[in-house]
C-alpha cells in the first residue's frame, strides 16, 4: 500500500494506481474528459490537472497518468489548477459549442461563457481520441484514427470515406464524452442500404 495526501487528507493506493484512480476511490471530484477506465490514458485534455507541492516547490501534473508515490502531497482545487481548468473549458466551449455534454461539465465547474470566438457552431468533437482508442483497444479494430496533426488534427476513417473495417458496434459512440461520435458514425460505417420492413404486430 502506498500512503499519500490529497487535499491534506491521507489516502492509500495500490502500487501502480494513478492519482486519479485513488481520488475516485475516495470520491474526490476531479473533472476529466479524455479519460476512460476501459482504455489506456492519453493525457490529452489536461482537465484533470492537479498540483503537487513539496515545501515551496510545486508542479502541475495530469492525474489520469500520474502514478502514485509514497508521501506526495496532491491538491485538486488550487488557483493554478482552477486556472488551467477554466481556460480549458473556455477553449472547449468555443471549439465544440454544439456539445451539450461539455456545456454541462463546464457549467458544473462554474464556466458558462467563453471569451473566444466560435469558428464552427456545429462542432462537437474535441479530438480527445477516446473513440479511436476504444476502437483499437476494446473492439480490436482500427476503423477510425487521428488524421493530420497539430491544429488540423481530426478523427475519422481513412480518406474520410466509409470503411468496411467498421463493424458498427457503437463502442465509439458510447465512449465519446462530447456526443460527437453520434453524428459521425454514419460517415464511418456508411448509411445502411437495406430498409427494414416494420415488424407485424
Amino acid at each position, binding site marked *: 500500500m502506498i500512503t499519500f495526501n490529497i487535499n491534506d487528507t491521507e489516502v492509500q493506493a495500490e502500487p501502480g494506481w494513478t492519482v486519479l484512480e485513488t481520488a475516485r476511490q475516495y470520491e474526490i471530484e476531479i473533472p476529466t474528459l479524455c479519460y476512460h477506465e476501459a482504455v489506456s490514458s492519453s493525457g490529452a485534455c489536461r482537465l484533470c490537472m492537479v498540483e503537487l507541492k513539496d515545501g515551496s516547490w510545486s508542479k502541475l501534473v495530469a492525474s489520469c497518468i500520474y502514478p502514485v508515490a509514497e508521501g506526495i502531497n496532491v491538491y485538486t482545487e488550487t488557483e493554478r489548477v482552477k486556472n*488551467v481548468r477554466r481556460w480549458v473549458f473556455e477553449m472547449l466551449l468555443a471549439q465544440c459549442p454544439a456539445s451539450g455534454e461539455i456545456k454541462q461539465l463546464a457549467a458544473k465547474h462554474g464556466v458558462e461563457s467563453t471569451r473566444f470566438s466560435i469558428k464552427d457552431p456545429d462542432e462537437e468533437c474535441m479530438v480527445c481520441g477516446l473513440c479511436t482508442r476504444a476502437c483499437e483497444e476494446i473492439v480490436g479494430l482500427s476503423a477510425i484514427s487521428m488524421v493530420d*496533426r497539430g*491544429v488540423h488534427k481530426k478523427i475519422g476513417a481513412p480518406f474520410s470515406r466509409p470503411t468496411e473495417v467498421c463493424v458498427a458496434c457503437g463502442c465509439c459512440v458510447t465512449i465519446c464524452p462530447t456526443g460527437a461520435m453520434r453524428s459521425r458514425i454514419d460517415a464511418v460505417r456508411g448509411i445502411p442500404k437495406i430498409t427494414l420492413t416494420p415488424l407485424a404486430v
Partner: protein
Amino acid sequence: MFNGNVALKTEVNRLNSHTDLNDFRQQILDSYDPDRPEILVCHGTGCIANGSVELTQALKKACQTMGVDAKIMPGIKSTGCQGLCSKGPLVHIKPHGLFYQRVKAKNAEEIIQKTIIENKPVKHLLYKDPQTGELFHKEEDIPFYKKQKRYVLKNIGKIDPTRIEDKIAVGGYQALAKALTTMTPEQVVEQITKSGLRGRGGAGFPTGRKWQGALKAIEKKGRPVYVVVNGDEGDPGAFMDCAIMEGDPHAVLEGLILGAYALGAEMGYLYIRAEYPIAIKHLQIAMEQAKAYGLLGENILGSDFCFNAQINRGAGAFVCGESTALFTSIEGKAGNPRPKYVRSVEEGLWGRPTVLNNVETWANVPMIVENGADWYANIGVPKSTGTKVFCLVGKVNNVGLVEVPMGTPLAEIVENIGGGLPGGAPFKAVQTGGPSGGCIPYHLKDLPVDFDSLTKAGAMMGSGAMIVMDDRDCVVDVARYFLRFLEEESCGKCLPCRLGLSRMREILDNFSHGCGEEKDIDDLMGLAQAIQDGALCALGSSAPNPCLTTIKFFKDEYIAHVRDQKCPAGVCKDLITYSIDPEACTGCMSCSRQCPQGCISGEKKKPHAIDESACIRCGICMETCKFKAVIVR
C-alpha cells in the same frame, strides 16, 4: 597544420592501440610540409550560399592555369563554418595566416598571383573594421574572433571534416584512447559529473547526473542501454549544431563513443534533421572512416569495447527534438511526445535506459576526458561551466557563429563580438532560446549569459540562437511570430497547446490590428499560465515565454497598441501612418518615383506629401529617402 594533399595510405590499417594512434598521428604530421601553402575555403551553409563552391573551383583552375611552382602548389580544402558568416565567403591561407572575406570566384587568380606566388596580401579582401577602418591581416586579431574562446569550435574551419586524418592530426580520438587505456567507465562518468557540464539542448540538465541516472536504471533493468545524439535543431535562427556536425563530425562521434564506453552501450543513434544533408553526409563519412581505423565498431582500438552507431533522419517536425517524440520517431512511429511521467534515462528508446544528449553536449565530452574535469570546470562560471556556442543573428553587424565562456555579459557578445548594430544604435532586446526563450531588454545588457541568469530573467538558454533586435522591431510582432511558428509545430495531442497557442496568437493579432483592450493583456497572461501549467510537453509549456517576457519588459509597448492604437516601432501596419517632414524634404522626388501606389505628390525641389488614404504602408518611401524626411508614427 596538415596539408591533406599527400596520400598517406592506400590501404587503411586498423589502429589497435594508443601507440598505433600516436604513430599514425606522427606519420601524418611528418608528411606535412610547412612551406607549402594551404587555402581553406569555408563551406558552411552561409558561405556556400554566397558562392564558395564556385570559388573553390576557380582557385583550383587558377592553380593549374597560372603555372604555380610545384613546391608552392597550395592544398585547397573545404572546411566547415569559419564563423563570420555575414562576411562570407571566407578564406584562410596558411602558412601566411591571412584571413580574406567576401571572396568571390573572380578574386581567385589575384589570390594565387599575389599571395601564393608573390607572398603578399590582397589588401581589398582583408577585413576592415567598420568603425575604425583598421585593416586586419589575421583572423586572431579581428575583434570578432579575438574576444571569443573557441573550444568546441576549435577545429571547425581549420580541418577538412571529411578526412579523419585531419582530425587525428589535431588530436582527434586522443580522449578515447586515454579513456580506453587509463580510465574505467566509472571514472569517465565521474569526470563528466565533476566537470559540471550541463546539457546544451536547452534545459541545461547536468550531464553527469543524467549518466548516473542511466547507470542506476541499468542496475535495476540491466542492459542494453542506448546513447543518442539529438541533432534535430529546429529553432528559427539556430545553426550551431549544424555547424558542429558539418565542420567537426568526429568531435560528436568521439563524444558519443566515450559516452557509450562510460555507460556500457553497444548501440547508438544519431538523430539528425533531414534538412541537414551535409551534416548527415559528413557524419556518415566520419563513421565509415572511424570504423575503417578501428575507432568504431568491434574491439575499438584493440580493446574489448565494441560499439556501433547509426544515423536516423529526423521526421521534419520541430517537436521531434523533444526527447520522447524523438524516441518514438526512431522507433518508427509518428514522432509525438509520450504522456508518461517516466524519465527517459529509465525508459527511453524501446523502453530501455537511454542517454540522450545534444550535439554540442557530446562535442564537449572529448575535451573534458582529455584535459580533465578540473580544467573544464575552470572555464565559465561555477554553476554553468565551459563555453556555449551561439548563433548571433538579426540586427547585428557580425552575423555568425560565436563561442564564449558561460557567464559572458550579453553586451560583450552583442557589442564587442557582434560589432554592435548597423548604424551604431544600442540594441532594443535580444531574444535568446528561440521560440521557447525570452526577450532580454537593453537595460539588462550586463546580464551574464549562463543557464541560471537567463532563466531568472524569464528567458532561457535554449539551444543558443541569439536574435538581436532594434527599435524598429515590434515586441507584439515578435511574440506573434514565435507563437505562429509553434502553433504550426504543435503535435496537437494536448488541448492547451493545440487550442491555446492559436488563441494567444489571435489575441496578439487583435493587438496588432488595433482592436485589443487593456484587459486582454491580463487574459493573455492568464491563458499563458494555463498553457505553461497544462501542456503535456515542453513545446507547449515553454511556448508562452516570448510573449510573457515581452509583456514583462515592454508593457508600455503593449499598452500603446491597445490603448492608443499605436505601434511605437512602426511595424504593425494597421496602427501606423507615413508622412513627410516638410522641413527635411528636399523635393528630390525619389520617394514619389518608388511609391507603388503613386500616392506621393509634390513638385521638384518642393516638399512632398503622402495621401494617407491610398498609402498601403509598405515603407518603401522611408527606405528610399536619403534625407530621413519620411516619418512613421
